[in-house]
Every structure is written in C-alpha cells, then in structure tokens.
C-alpha cells in the first residue's frame, strides 16, 4: 500500500504565498479597495508580470491590498499616484531577491501629468500640455490646478 501523505489545511493563518521577486517593486499596505485602481493607473493591467493580493489581513490597516511588480521600479509620477490613492502604502524596491530600499510614497509639492483637471474650460484640457497641480494641503488632500487655479478636494481627484 502506498503510504498516504496527509495534507494539513492551515485554517488559522490566512496567507497567500507568491513566489519571491528577484527584481522589482512590492507595493504593500495599500488601502483595501485600492489595489485594482493602482494597477489601472500604473497601466499594469495589460503589461508586465504582476501579482496582486486583495483583502489581506494587516496588523496596521485591518485589511490591505498588495502588489508585486516584476522588473520595474516606479517613477515619481507613479509614486504620486499611489500617494494620492493610498498614502499609507509602503514600497520596497527589490534587487537580487533583497530589499534594496523601503519607503512610503511622498507627494511632491507640485506634480505634472498625474491628475486630470475636471474644469472643461481649463487650458490644460484644450491645448497639448500636461496637467499640473500644486498641493495646498496633504490631510485632507487639496490640490490647485496650476493653470485654471481651481481647487480640487480629495473626494473629487481624478487620476490620469
């Protein structure tokens, strides 16, 4: 009789193992519900190898989303987008399976090509130029369009 190998179900620990990254970025502690939005605004839904975890247990947040992006480090524009969607996020840059650096995305005082100005009469929506915004307040987030000077409260911010 072939010995039967018993597999135990780990019901007490909810974890999902995803193979370790050799090179790339881990975006951890994403506010629950923002993982897919982050994938979308970073253009990762259709490009590159990505692993995503949704509604994972988190000591800090209760529940969180997490993204592992292979062979890619993020630009400042992309960091700004993450900082707007989920300011609590933690980013780890992985090089050769090791954490090379770990940081939280910080919004720059001014950002270009990150947020869409919702004012249809803004010149940024009518000429071939990149949108540009200045951060007025960080908590709660308030942005002013550099061109039309309209102020956008956090609930109405639309990422490009």
């Amino acid at each position, binding site marked *: 009789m072939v010995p039967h190998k018993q597999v135990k179900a780990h019901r007490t620990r909810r974890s999902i193992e995803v193979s370790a990254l050799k090179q790339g970025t881990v975006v951890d502690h994403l506010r629950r519900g923002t993982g897919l939005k982050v994938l979308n605004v970073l253009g990762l839904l259709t490009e590159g190898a990505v692993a995503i975890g949704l509604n994972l247990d988190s000591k800090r947040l209760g529940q969180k989303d997490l993204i592992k992006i292979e062979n890619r480090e993020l630009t400042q524009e992309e960091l700004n987008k993450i900082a707007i969607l989920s300011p609590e996020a933690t980013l780890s840059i992985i090089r050769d399976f090791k954490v090379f650096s770990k940081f939280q995305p910080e919004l720059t005082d001014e950002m270009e090509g990150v947020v869409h100005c919702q004012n249809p009469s*803004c*010149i940024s929506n009518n000429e071939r130029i990149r949108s540009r915004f200045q951060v007025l*307040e960080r908590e709660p987030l308030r942005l002013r369009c550099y061109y039309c*000077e309209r102020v956008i*409260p956090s609930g109405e911010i639309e990422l490009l």
Partner: protein
Amino acid sequence: MGSTSDPAQSFVGRDVVSMRNFSNEEIVHILDLADRFESVNEPLLRGKILANLFFEPSTRTRLSFQAAMARLGGATIGFADAAISSVSKGESLADTIRVVENYCDIIVIRHRYEGAARLAANTTSLPVLNAGDGSNQHPTQTLLDLFTIRKIHGRIHELRVAFLGDLRYSRTVHSLIETLGRFACDLVLVSPPSLRMPSDILDDLAAKGVRCREEFDPSILPLDVDVLYTTRIQKERFPDPLEYERVKNAYQLDRQSLNVYSQTVTVMHPLPRVNEISTDLDDYEGAAYFKQAKNGITVRKTLLSILLGVA
C-alpha cells in the same frame, strides 16, 4: 520718473497672471508706484512694443492698455478677435506666443480658457499680462479696483465689501475677492442662488479664515459695508428668459435703493453696465465706476513701466 527704487526693480521681467503670485507687500508697492504714475505722461516706453492678443472681445481693457502704452510713447500691435488670428487656422496658443514674442517687448492676453495666460507666460521669457482668462483671473482689473478703493478710503485693509450680481462667472470678482480676503476685509456675497460664488473659492476663503457671508435676497442690501461692488448679470447665463428678467431687475441699484445708507457707500462696477446701475446714480458722490476706468490707465502705465524696467 527716471529714478529707480528697489521695489520697482523687483518687478522687472515678471508676469502678471494671477493675484496669487503677488504678496500683500508687493501689491502695496504697485499701488504706491501707481500714485506716482498718475500724472506721468513721459515717453518712458519709446521704442517698446506691446502685443495685445485678445482672443475674446474687449473694449475697455484692450483700449486701456493701448492708451497706457501710447501715453508713455510706446506702440501697440495685436488683434481683437480670435477669428482674425491664426488660431482660426488651428494654431496652438503656444505657437502663437512663440511667433508673437519676436515682434514685441511685452504681451497682453485675453482668452476664453482659464490658465491661457499662465501657458503663455511659460512659453515666453517676455513679461505677460493676463487681461482675463475665462472666469479665473483679471489681475490688472483687481489692481485698478484696489487703487480706486485706496484713493477713496485711504486703505485696502479691514474694509467691508459687498459683491452683488453674477458671482459665479465674474473673473473680476474672483480675482478681487481673494485679494481683499488677504487684506482682512469682511465680505458679503449677494447673488441669485444659480449665480453664487463657486464652492471651491468659498472653501478657499474659509480655509484662509476670511470673514465672508452669503446672501440671496438682493432686496435687503447689507448695511454694514463701505463698498458695493456690482457686476453685470449676463442674459446668456439663464436658460429661462423670464428668470433673467426677474433677477436683472432685482439686482438694479438706483438712487432710491441707496437711501438705506446713512453713510456714503462706494459703488463700483467693472463695466460695461447694462441695467445693474441706474444712470441716476452717476452723479452720486460714491459712484466710482468711471473713476475705475480712469484709474485703469494709471495702473496699466505703472505695470508696463515696472515690468519693462523703466520705472
């Protein structure tokens, strides 16, 4: 006025796109310089060329810049309608500016899109003056309004100012209100609900601690004010012509309506007026709207001179 002073020197080559780019001290410096410029009609700007780029119609602002330039011996080129510029052929604003900057020393721009003057200023190293960008800013109007208020009241701080009429689309009001708020003025905003001040501007005023209240009944004029600033209510803003007629009449100021005041109230209007101010107010002691038009030349002469470094 051959003498130079440090405050004037700090303006050389700068743009006048938004009042937000000027500190309170700088605004006061400009008004001080304007006091000196009132009687100056010397050829300080001889050999200088102003490009008046009016992509939207204007009479007062365009002619006022042209007159200011002429008074100081300079020349003006430009157009008064986007239809006759190469924009009608599909040229971008940035390209228009890159071409025009070769023809002039300073640029004045009015445009229907908000932020157009900012884009123009970023495109050229020449000084750019915003003569109105959509419903956003009209800084030279604001400076001439402040100049007028200061001449009458001796100060621009801690005044009580009421705005009446179209507060939603009036760039003149948007530009002025933010600046008066910075000078600790108390503000009363009287408008039909459909033409009330945009919420982002109200929020901004609140965030800065500006004392500001809204009223929607024009039949009760606020009594505790030094200045009544009225604006034109535009027919095209109302889908229902009957609603326009009702509002238009309710917001008309006449001699009788000012009887509620025990003191002389300064009545201002950026012009053109249609029905908002009855002609029977024209000889009222506090009527300041034609003085504003006159002061516009002084303020624009000042700005052109300091930006071109001849003050």
